[in-house]
């Protein structure tokens, strides 16, 4: 699955457009992280626990989006965007959406494939 936030992929062109796919997740911070963040708020600096939380939610919502694209039989998602919204105090939604398409190689062709998505 190719996931990009541009409208084109080098060496490939859009064959079929399958429609919008989306994935979201609502996450709450936990008490342990909150206490650590409280201490960090006195001296400033990066809140590693919250960064980790953000990474996890981003990964989760992307995975859900990819699962939806797989169901449609797509091999790529183009123009992926993220938005966030605060649902209640202490919880946040991360929403990922994009356009599921099938791609085919152009005349130039793909000699080697892109590195796999994700880490």
């Amino acid at each position, binding site marked *: 699955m190719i996931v990009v936030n541009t409208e084109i992929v080098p060496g*490939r062109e859009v064959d079929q457009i399958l429609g919008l796919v989306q994935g979201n997740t609502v996450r709450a911070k936990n008490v342990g992280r909150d206490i650590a963040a409280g201490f960090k708020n006195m001296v400033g600096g990066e809140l590693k626990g919250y960064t980790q939380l953000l990474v996890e939610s981003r990964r989760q919502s992307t995975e859900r989006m990819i699962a939806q694209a797989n169901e449609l039989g797509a091999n790529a998602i183009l123009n992926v965007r993220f938005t966030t919204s605060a649902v209640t105090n202490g919880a946040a939604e991360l929403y990922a959406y994009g356009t599921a398409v099938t791609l085919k190689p152009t005349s130039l062709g793909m000699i080697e494939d892109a590195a796999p998505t994700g880490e």
Partner: protein
Amino acid sequence: MEQFLVLFIQFGFGIVLLGLGFGVGRFTEKRHFNRLHQREYMYKGVLVTSLSTLPYADQRVGSTMVTGECVIATDYFKSFVTKLKKIIGGELRAYLSLMDRARRESVVRLIEQAQEQGFDAVCNIRFVSADVGGSTSNRKGAAMVAIIASGTAYKRNMNTAIDEHGSV
């Protein structure tokens, strides 16, 4: 003596926190900016743009999405100064550097992810500020910035020379 003790308990703790926030906060910020500067210099060969057209793309290699996340908190001193500034309004300069640090850090992380996967250019960079802690500043003086940067990593065509602009 007793009065002094009461006074100290009332205000001393706040003053200690202010000093701690000023000293340690300033030190960590300076160190962070130095480290950011170093890493940005290290990755200055990577072409970073906000264009969606993949400039100088190598057509034989595909592309993939990369992301960088960062959450940074203020210190006690900065939130105190901001509270005072809010009375008269105007630009909150104390929070300006905070936003700057979070954005730059997330872009550097994004570039690192692209480099790990063997790409040497990132285009279409977008920023979203995520509010992990709910509404940020309603708890006592606890403001924080959460940034997600996303972009598309691709391989540059080696035949095209890279000029100064666009690179970090």
